């Protein structure tokens, strides 16, 4: 089994008002992978992520980072927080400063980096998120998409090993969603472990290396995308849709309209590649009938 970077072991969590948000949840995340956490609203995704950052402390079970159990003393918490970054769902709850540059510099300064290093990280994060034009604008006059990108730059500037995106594409227009998923791929190519939560099955299917499905505060299933979405019973039990690519592919397959040796496609392009240009059994059949 490959090295796991962050791990939840039988984690239980109950909010002060009595809501049980996580119950005996176990999840092991492999280093350098693209992980999607699928679950409906209220499934416990955000609560789980707050545990990965030691903002919340489990009432049962424990969290491991790099194989070591988190013991919640100050040093351990600080180390975890500089290694694991969370981009929160609502940028307005994350942006505390009216100045974009000050906002992005907050994390790296807390990590105790020297001023020059902070400056270069801030400007690199701003270029990567295409927010370098916004430096002089106050955060309250930015559009939602711009705020979202600043909130991503906040975390990129800290350059953590593991980056968690809590529902990154919710409320974004298609162009920005593509920009954000592009950013996620770029981070993954740099060797980062990228975790995202979503209820968009199409995104999870085409983007992730590995998928966890959370339901009612516990992991109800996990696996490679092509395996997870084959099991129709499992999908209905967890009220998940089937990704459209799989639906179309299966339909084409049952009608014999795809190349015989084609693996299950992960993207629109791969799907189109599966449809043969001219001579296919289906077309041959059609010709014969004519």
């Amino acid at each position, binding site marked *: 089994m490959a090295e796991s970077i962050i791990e939840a072991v039988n984690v239980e969590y109950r909010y002060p008002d009595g809501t049980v948000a996580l119950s005996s949840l176990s999840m092991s995340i492999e280093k350098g992978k693209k992980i999607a956490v699928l679950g409906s609203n209220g499934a416990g995704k955000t609560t789980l992520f707050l545990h990965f950052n030691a903002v919340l402390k489990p009432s049962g079970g424990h969290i491991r980072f790099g194989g070591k159990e988190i013991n919640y003393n100050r040093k351990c918490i600080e180390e975890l927080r500089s290694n694991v*970054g969370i981009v929160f769902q609502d940028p307005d709850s994350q942006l505390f400063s009216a100045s974009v540059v*000050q906002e992005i510099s907050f994390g790296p300064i807390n990590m105790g980096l020297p001023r020059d290093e902070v400056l270069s990280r801030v400007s690199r994060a701003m270029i990567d998120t295409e927010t370098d034009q916004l430096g002089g604008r106050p955060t*309250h006059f930015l559009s939602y998409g711009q705020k979202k990108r600043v909130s991503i730059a906040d975390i990129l500037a800290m350059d953590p090993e593991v980056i968690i995106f809590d529902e990154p594409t919710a409320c974004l227009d298609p162009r920005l969603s593509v920009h954000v998923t592009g950013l996620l791929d770029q981070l993954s190519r740099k060797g980062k472990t990228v975790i995202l939560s979503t209820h968009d099955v199409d995104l999870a299917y085409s983007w992730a290396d590995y998928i966890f499905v959370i339901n009612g505060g516990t992991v109800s299933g996990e696996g490679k995308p092509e395996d997870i979405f084959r099991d129709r019973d499992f999908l209905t039990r967890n009220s998940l849709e089937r990704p459209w690519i799989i639906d179309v592919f299966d339909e084409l397959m049952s009608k014999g309209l795809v190349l015989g040796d084609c693996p299950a496609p992960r993207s629109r392009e791969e799907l189109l590649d599966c449809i043969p240009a001219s001579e296919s059994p289906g077309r041959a059949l059609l010709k014969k009938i004519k």
Partner: protein
Amino acid sequence: MFQIDQYAYSNRLLTVHPGEKLAFAVITMIICLISQSLAALLAAAVLMAGAVILAGIPLRVYLKLMTVPASFLVIAVGAVAVSISGNGEGYLWGVDLGRFYIGIGSCNLDLSILLLCRSLGAISCLYFLSLTTPMVEVISILRKLRVPPLFIELMGLIYRFIFVLVETAESIYTSQSSRLGYRNLKTGYSSLGILAANLLVRAYRRSEILFTTLSSRGYTGEIRVLETQFAVSGKNILAIMAIDVLLILLSLAEMSGGGLIGRIYN
């Protein structure tokens, strides 16, 4: 208020060192609060208006902003000018009410004119500062002046979250009025009450979430951020000094020459 803030981030004096602008506004304002000279006070008001125009803020906008404090001013100044007394001595104009005399006395009139000019001068200084200097920079200057961090952080957070709060209030208001929440006075009162209560709850919840998001980026009780660096301009500092010395001289000259105040106490 948002309009002022927008100009603060987009005016032509944006690149001027915020410390220079702050010093200009504050020193001139102190002069306005002390000076007894009408000429110096009016000069300060005109100078500040000039600086604001120089920064590229349209005169029309500036005059409109000035009407906001004007209504308070008129009432306050009117109250000072009018007085009641037993007889009509020393009154420029008045009404005899039998046992009382209500009217405008000459000393009261002078005093109220001084008050008017002083307020105009001081208000102009404040407007100059808020129209040309982003709050973020005012705060960072205060930080450099070693104002306690607690105060600085509160200022920064309050400034940031005023906008979030107003947005929240607007969205609640819209959703209420789209369901006829403000159809008549009665529903209006009850909707407004719900809005206020919700705003309080949400503000509290927001502060909790903010604590969470800050903690996850390593917050341990102090907000430290990068400061923007500005170039200090010797020319500007000289100009500020020259203008303020001139205003002080003007005030002193009128005092020794027995100007307005001389007339009052003679």
